[in-house]
């Protein structure tokens, strides 16, 4: 027990000098450090580097020079940038609202009991994880104004022909159609989870109080799934605002610049015009906007919480 005694005196003398007592709680930093290193290298470093590039005039193949905020000033006066901002906004709002509405509807249906429910739900969910580029290419074929199957189907019911992604005024709604097709299942699954967590009693009591189906939905279901709708809204907003694959593969921002979102403009600036400095400034602004958006959404979410949600 000699060693114990030594430890004992060492510890005591340590305390007498007024130093902090030895940490007993397990040290968790070793668990975090590898990830910290990787994240610094692949995430934080690019952030910082982008910031640095944005203060330079830097076009591939040409000399680079420090220009301070000039890229940002140029951005403020760039009509195409503001236009792309507007497209991003429109695209985001539409591709949040439509899936949210349809997804809720689908969840209400799939929450009920009917034959083959599990199988049908499985089919419904398929688009969600399909490779966006692959999907987009097939949609492009379907949207073809003369040869596409969609116009044919519409012609059967006497509508059309529409020009879909080939017309400046219909391109964004058409892209949103694809986005909706792909992401409605996600909303459906989230809301379905919400519906499953709703207690039965309020419905029984509402039944006794004489509520009809709509009233039950409006005054019970809707408020109770609100937090889940909020989750869906947040995820959808963040994904929609940075949507790239679908737009790039289908229209590359066209016709004209009618579907050019910030992300696409950013891509074109950096990789088609090689104007990396300017593209970086755009990336920085875009980044700030996304972060701001998500914080706003998170704040709103905390307000809509009717209870601390079940952890899982």
């Amino acid at each position, binding site marked *: 027990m000699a060693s114990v005694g030594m430890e004992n005196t060492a510890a005591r003398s340590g305390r007498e000098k007024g130093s902090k007592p030895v940490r007993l709680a397990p040290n968790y930093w070793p668990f975090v450090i590898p990830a910290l290193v990787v994240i610094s290298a692949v995430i934080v470093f690019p952030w910082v580097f982008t910031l640095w590039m944005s203060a330079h005039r830097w076009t591939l193949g040409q000399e680079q020079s420090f220009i301070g905020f000039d890229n940002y000033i140029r951005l403020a006066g760039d009509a195409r940038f503001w236009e792309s901002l507007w497209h991003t906004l429109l695209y985001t709002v539409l591709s949040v609202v439509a899936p949210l509405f349809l997804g809720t509807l689908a969840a209400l249906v799939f929450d009920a009991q009917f034959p083959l429910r599990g199988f049908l739900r499985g089919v419904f969910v398929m688009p969600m994880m399909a490779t966006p580029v692959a999907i987009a290419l097939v949609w492009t074929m379907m949207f*073809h*104004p*003369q*040869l596409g199957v969609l116009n044919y189907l519409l012609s059967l019911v006497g509508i059309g*022909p529409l020009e879909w*992604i*080939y017309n*400046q005024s219909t391109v964004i709604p058409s892209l949103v159609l694809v986005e909706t097709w792909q992401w409605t299942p996600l909303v459906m699954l989230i809301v379905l989870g919400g519906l499953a967590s709703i207690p039965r009693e309020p419905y029984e009591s509402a039944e006794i109080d004489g509520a009809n189906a709509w009233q039950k939905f409006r005054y019970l279901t809707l408020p109770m799934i609100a937090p889940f709708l909020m989750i869906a809204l947040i995820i959808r907003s963040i994904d929609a605002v940075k949507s790239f694959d679908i737009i790039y593969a289908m229209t590359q921002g066209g016709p004209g610049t009618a579907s050019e979102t910030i992300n696409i403009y950013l891509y074109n600036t950096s990789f*088609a015009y*090689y104007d990396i400095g300017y593209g970086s400034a755009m990336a920085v602004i875009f980044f700030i906007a996304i972060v701001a958006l998500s914080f706003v959404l998170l704040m709103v979410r905390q307000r809509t919480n009717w209870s601390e949600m079940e952890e899982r």
Partner: protein
Amino acid sequence: MTHSLLKPTRRGFLAGTTAIGGSALLGIRPASAAINWKKHAGTTLEVNLVKSPRSETLIKYLGEFQELTGIKVNAEATPEQQQRQKVVIELSSGKPSFDVVHLSYHVQKRQFEKGKWLADISGFLKDPSLTDPSLVEADFADAGMQFARDADGVLRSLPFSVDYWIIYWNKELFEAKGLKYPETFEEMVTAAEKLTDPSTNTYGFVARGLKNANTPVWTSLMLGYGAKPIGADGKLATDSKEAVEAAKLYQRLMTKAAPPGVSGFNWAEAQSAFLQGKIGMWFDGVGFAPPIENPEKSRVVGKVGYGVMPKGPSAQASGTFGDGLGVVEASTKKEAGYLFCQWAISHEMGARLLQAGAGVPFRQSILEDRKVREGVKMPAAWLDAVVGSGKISQLALPVIIPVTEFRDSFGVGLTNMIGGADPATELKKATEQFAPVLARSEG
């Protein structure tokens, strides 16, 4: 700076054609005894190509080159847009992953020169141990040499294939309406409008409407009005009277006679539409004959005429584009790379290109070779159109660095015109938008 290159090339082109008339006799064998093809046997070359029927022809016969030289070639072909992006990023980083690069002159020439990315190969060309005696600068169409030489006159690439824009026309539809192939712009428009009948889903004209892709359509039309996007004084002439006239013509064709949705059409959509037999005329590059004559893909096999661009009010001109192969300055295998370029533009490979309809070589000796011409699998009319276009060839895009921005800026305007916007206003707007970009690029 740029205008010297933009001067009409017709004269030089014609001169080249006649001067080299006899060189076809020099034989088809690329393996001239003088060249030491095996000099770099064992080397591995990385070659970066634009995906196209041209590069596919190269890749198809790559085995022959490897056998000939003992050089191992890793050739990659990526779609044009991606290839351009990737190549520039790699080159500008100073350590490209390839030794030989395929470039589109009409888009990248200036940029490559400014970046000093390509090696000077004029020395190689004079070295008989590296170069076949048949390969002389004079054999190339004038446009090709203008493309290949930099501003100081140094040769930095070998012209590979030229692209003239022609009119593909559906003879059946023309006959049905009792129409002839148009001789002038005016006739072209009238024919297009007459052919158009939305009730049967038939349209008289199709061309690229998609932003960026559509700009060459307009600049090609502009040539017919005797104008170019950048005037002889080096200033932007994109809102000149001629430019506006060309844009009006574009607008008229694309709104009155083109299928719905054309503002989203690139060559692919236009081609799909034309192949279905419901389009009277299709205006695009010369390389689309193979799919048209392929019964697996086309409903118009044997029904298509190939026409030289009709005459405009001031001139008859065929918009000309081209690509070349260069050796990368940063490469450590420049000679091996040069051997590859030389093989790629050799008489034999050029003949294969032409015979398959995959592209048109810049070398006049190939075009003039009767034997080669006999082997062409495409209709004779196509070859006639090629040769005819060669005679009125003019560069259709300005030789500047920001070609992509140029095409984007004016492309948006043109797309807007299909949507009904006023050509003059759109061009003015685009010019104002593009002017500072151009200024910045050369600044």
